């Protein structure tokens, strides 16, 4: 029963799209109701399954998936022509990421209920994007994984170019093509992985058991790692994200920064590092050098920007850099911190982009120099923004603190001077983060209120609901992180073991 529910996570959004194809676009209200209902149902299913995974932790998992601790394991033959199977399963890590996605999709649907343009197509694309993200986190077959991973390109361009603002065509193309470049690197190495490992299927678990030749790993690992890192905006492939996010409509920014950018980091951990641990051990120290840009320079760039979405985009770049710091540390605590940061940053950036979108809908500008005194007119949205900012700069009590401190501890344990230096720089960069967050909040929320904003209103019920739920998630992870670490550890242990067992 739970397995069927688990598989329905990605099927329900697709069915929703099919159902809405039949309804004429003039019945916008019916279409919206269907999409909100479907997103809520998925959210409920995912929350329930996350609870199941937590409740069952410690009990034996499906032996077919060993060494990974997978539940709800499904293995069905799919495309026999190239030996691809339909393999999905859940361990702690991807279950939490699924929960994050369900929350962000739900919030994204709610905030875009009054989007302009053809709503039927917009919501269909959101659901397709949700399908693709759910699919990526669920699948353990590399072909299936890649199909879902690449599917996002189709939705992203159309959503940004048709429903975005500003330089929407430019931003959409930049984002789609850069991500496509990343996935083409992944696809090229996937073929190599399959044929060099001599595996009989694209099953990730089966390929992990084979011994890949070292010379193959040495060129394939950096290609694949960078391919995934493109979508997590690791320097030097970060350039798509500010333009892409600023052009995208609110819901797409939330999904892109909240869950899609985590797909890259997830792929780095689950596919690249898990399958090629020997090369990972050699190459990852060099990745740490790239992080200096993400973690240290990212916040400085954010200080100089005036556009709210650019500021948030650069803040995302720096936060995602921390995920890579955790991965590159190659210690269990570092990996746990990286996973925590993926989840924490998803909620945090979702909240950020949601409040920015709501404010933009009212002020029609995202330029912080033109705003001021908004706190007086929209106290609720203002507080939401400030709370997101506090979580972002790692205030204790919020999830950001737990995640970042775990990463720093994990990274400092790594016995390498470079990693330690970068860790110290990263810790110092929290100050820079505080500068741009407080400066933005100050300019935007306080000071004199411009005449033209006199008539603005505070958030309506559904907007308040979104903010409350996301803040609650941030606080919940921040206050009681124990249960999350508990279920994360089962899924990280096999990956770490594989890396640690190398002589």
């Amino acid at each position, binding site marked *: 029963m739970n397995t069927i529910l688990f598989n329905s996570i990605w099927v329900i959004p697709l069915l929703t799209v099919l159902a809405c194809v039949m309804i004429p*676009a003039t019945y916008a209200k019916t279409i919206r109701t269907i999409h909100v209902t479907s997103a809520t149902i998925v959210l409920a299913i995912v929350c329930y399954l996350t609870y199941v995974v937590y409740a069952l932790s410690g009990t034996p998992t499906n032996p077919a998936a060993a060494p990974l601790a997978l539940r709800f394991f499904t293995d069905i*033959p*799919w*495309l*026999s*022509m*190239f030996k691809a199977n339909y393999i999905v399963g859940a361990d702690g890590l991807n279950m939490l990421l699924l929960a994050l996605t369900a929350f962000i999709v739900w919030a994204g649907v709610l905030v875009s209920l009054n989007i302009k343009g*053809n709503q039927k*197509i917009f919501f269909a694309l959101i659901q397709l994007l949700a399908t693709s993200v759910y699919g990526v986190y669920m699948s353990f077959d590399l*072909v299936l994984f*890649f*199909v*879902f991973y*690449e*599917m996002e*390109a*189709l939705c992203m*361009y*159309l959503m940004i*170019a*048709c429903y975005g603002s500003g330089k*929407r*065509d430019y931003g959409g*193309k930049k984002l*789609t*093509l850069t991500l*496509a*470049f990343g996935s*083409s*690197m992944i*696809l*090229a190495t996937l*073929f*190599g992985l*399959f*044929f060099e490992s001599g595996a009989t299927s694209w099953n990730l678990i089966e390929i992990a058991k084979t011994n890949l030749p070292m010379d193959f790993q040495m060129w394939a690992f950096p290609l694949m790692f960078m391919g995934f890192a493109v979508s997590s905006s690791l320097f030097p492939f970060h350039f798509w994200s500010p333009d892409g996010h600023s052009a995208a409509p609110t819901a797409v920014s939330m999904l892109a920064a909240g869950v899609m950018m985590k797909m890259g980091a997830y792929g780095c951990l689950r596919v690249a590092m898990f399958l090629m641990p020997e090369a990972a051990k050699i190459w990852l120290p060099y990745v740490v050098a790239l992080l200096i840009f993400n973690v240290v320079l990212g916040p400085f760039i954010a200080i100089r920007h005036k556009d709210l979405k650019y500021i948030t985009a650069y803040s995302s770049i720096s936060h995602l850099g921390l995920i890579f710091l955790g991965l590159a540390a190659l210690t269990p605590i570092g990996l746990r911190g990286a996973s925590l940061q993926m989840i924490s940053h998803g909620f945090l950036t979702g909240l950020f982009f949601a409040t920015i979108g709501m404010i933009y809908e009212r002020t029609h500008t995202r330029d912080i120099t033109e705003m001021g005194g908004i706190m007086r007119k929209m106290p609720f949205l203002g507080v939401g923004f400030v709370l997101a900012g506090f979580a972002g700069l790692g205030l204790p009590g919020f999830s950001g603190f737990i995640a970042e401190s775990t990463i720093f501890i994990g990274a400092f344990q790594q016995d390498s001077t470079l990693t330690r230096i970068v860790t110290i720089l990263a810790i110092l960069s929290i100050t820079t983060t505080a500068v741009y967050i407080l400066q933005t909040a100050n300019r935007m929320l306080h000071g004199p209120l411009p005449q033209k904003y006199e008539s603005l209103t505070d958030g309506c019920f559904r907007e308040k609901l979104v903010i409350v739920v996301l803040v609650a998630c941030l606080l919940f992870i921040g206050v009681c992180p124990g249960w999350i670490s508990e279920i994360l550890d089962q899924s990280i242990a096999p990956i770490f073991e594989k890396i640690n067992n190398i002589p």
Partner: protein
Amino acid sequence: MFNIPNFILPDVLLLIFPFIVIGMRLFVTTRSQLPWRLANIGFIAIFILLNLIPFSGGAERIFISNWKVDDFGVLMREVLIVSALLGMWLSKDYFEHGADKKPQMHQIAEFIGAIAFATFGGFTVVSACDLLTFFLGLEIATIPMYALAAWNKRDQYGSEAATKYILMGSVATAFELFGFSYLYGFSGSLHFSEIQAAVASGSSPLLWIAVLFLFCGIGFKLTLFPFYTWAPDVYEGAPTPVTAVLSVTSKATAIAFLVVLVYGPLSPIQDKMAPLIALLAGVTLFVGNLGALKQSRLRRFMAYSSIAQAGYIMVALLGPATTAKTAIIYYLFVYAVSNYLAFFVFSIIGHHREETFQSLRGLSKQNPSLAIALAISMFSLAGIPPLAGFFGKFHLFFSGASTGHYTLVAFAVLNNVIALFYYLQLIKAAWVDEPDGHLTPLRLTKRQREVVILLSIAVIFLGFVPFLSNNIFAGFTN
């Protein structure tokens, strides 16, 4: 009389019914739908008969010593028939509209006849057991296309296109014949099995000259680098249905020709030909992709896009026989459906407007279903999952990578990013640009709408629905 075996029935039927369709023209009025209906029944009947032929699993069925029907042949026939049927559907709009807005349905008979003969040429290529039949097949496939390309005989561009195509095509034929003659001189036989034995027993410069000329000759027809230059002009000058047939049937025949050669008589030197194939594939797909970047006319754009697709197909020729054949058949199916979908949309636009990117402006607002169909076909041609085009390309790359050509596969995959860029240009015109008030509004007939929906559904589900890919295309695996 011969005792005609069952497996040859579709071929016989295809040979007979075009004559009936053409002959019927003498007895019908200019508005009569009869030839069209008969042709529909004929093609569908052939398609059903083809599907009834059981897979032999490697064993060849031979009819009077030089006509074989193997699994690859059956599947290739299905591709060609699907292409002919779709081409015919596409041509109906063209003839109903007529040159001067007068319906010319009686002319469709000759048109269908030409398509059917070209298809029969394709049948002959995949059935041939000796060089003579092989050559005849290629010629039967090409000569009707010359006539089709010259259909717009009063149009300046049409005549230019036809002249160019005939000249280039004749040169290509000469190259092929030259190659065949050296192949014959080298092996002393016209029969494939004897040539294969001779090739296996020893190599000589004579053989390599033959191979080189054969590749040059077929390079013209498959629009490989550096013989692709005729394609953009001909694709633009010929009527839309002809362009579509040219880009699918002709290309499928040409690739079938290569498959028969590479995995037939030349199979002993396949690994030695690999650098040549890889070079042609890599350069062709790169040149095609670069060429498409700056196009603003729809059919020129499709010409470059199909040049690039030819390059992608060549990648599969590096793999082992069964993998490569399955990959190519599967891809051709997918390519045919995606390409025809695009041409259907272009033809609807072409009836009311000029065929440029400009004419697509605001399509998503005025005619969302057409814009969705266009996006589906473009994303499929660009190879974005879960559309069929992705699985097709994946299969081609799978075949190429299975013999360790990772560099070429990586190059081809990276080229996909360039391809995505220009397909996005077209999607942008339809989805992002604001509507232009000067454009004539589009009207879809019920039939056009049905075909577009049918093809869109095919493009979406042909890829990942396993029962399709297992049963129809699994001829080589069982």
